[in-house]
């Protein structure tokens, strides 16, 4: 059974600071997805990482994938309040590329 672990689950940080969210998964997969969820809202796709060594950046967020280590990171640079949300990583097994297993999510709060 594929398991996806995120840490930390809760992250409170000050504006302007940097931090990294980690996503580990238990079985072989060659793709990983990051989503953002605002309170009371649905999930918004942030990044699709498709191969070992993939790196994608959008604004203050940068995601990377290491398939050998079964690890993805979501790095936040110079955080701003608008980044406050819950961030999920999701991984499909190779046998079923459509079937996402989600981590429990990281609740990020950026304080002024």
């Amino acid at each position, binding site marked *: 059974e594929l398991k996806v672990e995120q840490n930390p689950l809760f992250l409170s940080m000050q504006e302007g600071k940097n931090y990294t969210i980690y996503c580990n998964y238990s079985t072989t997969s060659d*793709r990983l997805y990051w989503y953002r969820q605002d309170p009371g809202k649905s999930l*918004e796709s942030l990044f*699709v990482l498709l191969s070992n060594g993939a790196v994608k950046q959008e604004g203050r967020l940068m995601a990377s994938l290491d398939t050998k280590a079964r690890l993805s990171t979501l790095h936040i640079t110079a955080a701003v309040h608008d980044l406050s949300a819950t961030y999920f990583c999701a991984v499909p097994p190779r046998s079923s590329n*459509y*079937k996402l297993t989600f981590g*429990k999510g990281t609740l990020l709060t950026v304080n002024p």
Partner: protein
Amino acid sequence: GAGVSQSPSNKVTEKGKDVELRCDPISGHTALYWYRQSLGQGLEFLIYFQGNSAPDKSGLPSDRFSAERTGGSVSTLTIQRTQQEDSAVYLCASSLDSGGIYEQYFGPGTRLTVT
């Protein structure tokens, strides 16, 4: 363009009643998914439809849950004889199948409360 839409946005029902939740995917998306989000279990895959292929129902938690997709578009998730543990937000998503890449676009969800 229009995103994934779901109805109703909220549903309160009594234990033992049946409920139907509806999902309209993004036009042109061949794949449709249902997930359940609850505090205790997080986000769980329920079912996947792709074109005319047999659906992957492996995530449905019991035989009280069923789903259909008519005409390759609209989908309905039905829960029979609802139980309190069915209370959750039910999310629908759709995607293209772009060479095995399934970037899923989620709807706003239906919040189901079973009393």
